[in-house]
């Protein structure tokens, strides 16, 4: 019997969100609401030094004066910030030396996610710092890294053990008053990762963090700080998945990258948070501020595969401050059902001979809205700046939307800016062609979408690329029509 699109849709509608389960782990959770006492309590729980507490309070006070941004092409019910609990930690136990000490239920969660620490340990060259709710519970490969002088730990640990580094760099790329969500994050961030690569060191493995939101009603506020000293190199992977949830979960992360002279940072993200159900109910709100600073001759590449979240607001950016520095942004954003994504990048050319590349692939299906928003800014002193931008949109069906908002501000005549944009649709003829070769419709769509996304997928580290490809397929299941 011919498998019609209608039947395909039906079947997939009942498919539960792959990782939509909930782990019942005893948690240490602060009461809902946000005020100075809560900010202080978070800082206390983290046993932070006073300067950190004060920094948070300044951010909080600034945040109180700020308004939620409304310029993005997304519509959602504004979160009630007093109805969120800002801190939750799985179990009281602060650290684990071996897996045996870890809550078996937690290990079970990892298994369901397909990222058992066991497996990850075996995966050559990948050190995993898993963030379960807000506190890191497992860190591996630390020793190998330590031998090279590389620091890879939770931000809380860094605040205690490397306060001079944190103090020097935190908030230098994303100031605590940068925007509404960055200010909120600065006030209440409870965990995240810290990474420091010493001068001249090439990090021998991909550093990888798996994020996970777990506690009902807990917003997660990750803070990540990556510092690459002169002439160093690091590739950092970030991936996540979340349990099925009815209420909206707010997520407002801040990531700051600092690439000093001749350093290179590759930052790759696969984002798969619960996108809401097929009626658009529930799902994660993902309001992220990611920004990197390039000193002389430095390079920062952002690569992201965004398939999850109900609402995404995210613009990984590069400040090309040093002469000859390079910024890259490679992105695949998939929206299905009622998902909304407003994502893109900012490339700020300050130094001479700076170069940036933007490759953005948006895939929209269902009733979703997918917007690319990008700014290329060339300052007056940025002689010979070059930018190439390519924004491609792929549409599936007639009810979704793809939008492109490129902003170009050039204050130096020597700049060379190129912008290309295409919009295409998966055609019946393409699908029939594949069908005729024995490839069913679902597989055909996966093939076409992977082809469309190839330039970006190719930028991901191998093990991540495979995972990302699978994610694309899962996210678009049932979207034909």
């Amino acid at each position, binding site marked *: 019997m*011919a498998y019609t699109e209608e039947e395909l849709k039906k079947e997939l509608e009942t498919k539960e969100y792959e990782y939509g389960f909930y782990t019942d782990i005893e948690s240490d959770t602060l009461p809902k609401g946000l005020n100075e006492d809560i900010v202080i309590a978070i800082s206390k729980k983290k046993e932070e030094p006073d300067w950190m507490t004060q920094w948070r309070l300044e951010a909080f006070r600034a945040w109180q004066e700020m308004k939620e941004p409304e310029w993005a092409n997304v519509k959602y019910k504004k979160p009630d910030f007093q109805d969120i609990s800002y801190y939750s930690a799985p179990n009281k136990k602060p650290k684990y030396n071996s897996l045996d000490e870890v809550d078996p239920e937690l290990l079970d969660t990892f298994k369901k996610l397909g990222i058992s620490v066991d497996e990850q340990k075996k995966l050559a060259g990948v050190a995993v710092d898993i963030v379960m709710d807000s506190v890191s519970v497992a860190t591996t490969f630390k020793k190998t890294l330590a031998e090279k002088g590389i620091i890879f730990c939770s931000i809380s640990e860094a605040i205690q053990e490397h306060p001079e580094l944190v103090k020097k760099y935190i908030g230098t790329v994303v100031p605590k008053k940068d925007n509404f969500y960055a200010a909120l994050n600065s006030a209440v961030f409870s965990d995240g990762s810290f990474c420091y690569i010493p001068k001249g060191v090439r990090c021998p493995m991909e550093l990888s963090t798996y994020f996970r939101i777990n506690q009902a009603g807990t917003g997660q506020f990750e803070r990540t700080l990556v510092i690459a000293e002169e002439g160093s190199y690091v590739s950092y992977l970030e991936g996540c998945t979340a349990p099925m949830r009815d209420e909206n979960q707010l997520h407002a992360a801040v990531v700051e990258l600092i690439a000093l002279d001749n350093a290179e940072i590759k930052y790759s993200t696969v984002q798969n948070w619960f996108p809401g159900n097929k009626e658009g109910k529930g799902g994660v709100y993902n309001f992220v501020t990611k920004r990197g600073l390039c000193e002389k001759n430095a390079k920062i590449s952002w690569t992201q595969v965004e398939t999850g979240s109900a609402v995404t607001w995210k613009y990984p950016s590069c400040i090309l401050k040093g002469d000859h520095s390079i910024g890259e942004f490679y992105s695949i954003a998939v929206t299905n059902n009622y998902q909304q994504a407003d994502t893109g990048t900012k490339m700020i050319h300050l130094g001479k001979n700076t170069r940036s590349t933007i490759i953005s692939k948006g895939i929209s299906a269902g009733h979703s809205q997918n917007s690319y928003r990008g700014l290329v800014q060339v300052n007056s002193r940025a002689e010979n700046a070059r930018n190439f931008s390519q924004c491609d949109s792929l549409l599936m069906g007639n009810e979704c939307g793809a939008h492109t908002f490129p902003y170009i501000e050039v204050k130096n005549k020597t700049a060379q800016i190129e912008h290309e944009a295409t919009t295409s649709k998966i055609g019946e003829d393409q699908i029939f062609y594949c069908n*005729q070769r*024995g*490839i069913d419709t679902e*597989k055909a769509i996966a093939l*076409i979408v992977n082809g*469309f*996304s190839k330039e970006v997928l190719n930028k991901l580290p191998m093990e991540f690329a495979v995972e990302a490809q699978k994610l694309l397929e899962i996210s678009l299941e049932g979207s034909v029509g």
Partner: protein
Amino acid sequence: MLKIKNLHASIDDKKILKGINLEVNAGEVHAIMGPNGSGKSTLASVIAGKEEFEIKKGSISMEGEDLEELAPEERAHKGIFLSFQYPVEIPGVSVTNFIKTAINESRKARGMEDMPANEMLKLIREKSQMLDIDRKFLSRSLNEGFSGGEKKRNEIFQMAVMEPKLAILDETDSGLDIDALRIVADGVNKLRSKDKAIIVITHYQRLLEYIVPDYVHVLHDGKIVKSGTKELALELEEKGYDWLKQEAAV
């Protein structure tokens, strides 16, 4: 192998096929000729299972099994292959990746494991040599920026790799120069065997000098108006289609 009985097919209530009868046995090569718009590609699409076309009357069966209930990919798994008149582009999907996916999906449908990589490599190498296709071509995006001739050669390459039971070649000769035509025809002839069948759709008899058919049918206005042996193709070449149209009108 293939039995078509009194087939009527429409699209958006426009009648295109108006009572086709055709029987193709294993080992045979049939040519279908006819002027533009007579329904040749429609017939090929209907056999391959394109859902836009609605079968109003009649039946199509393959090895005794009614095809109407089968999805296009299931027909492909049964060994039906269509070389498209206008092959579509799939950006970012290499010829190799596409062929690999097609082979493995068909194997999966037959309960087989994926083809081992070295076997796949050998197969692709052998067939690409046969069709004089160079390696660079294999890494290009499927049909993207291909010349007309390259597209057709790629179709026949896929056919050679898939080794279908029933191959339908829709205007494979158009866009090919004489050398390419010879190479492609050789490739098709290699597929000829007593348990396989081929339907060659063309409106010139040129291709039929290289792929010599056992039977020739002339399609006009959705009906087969004349059938014969290979000499009929020559006769058509000489007289054009008009005399048949007149004959059909009588």
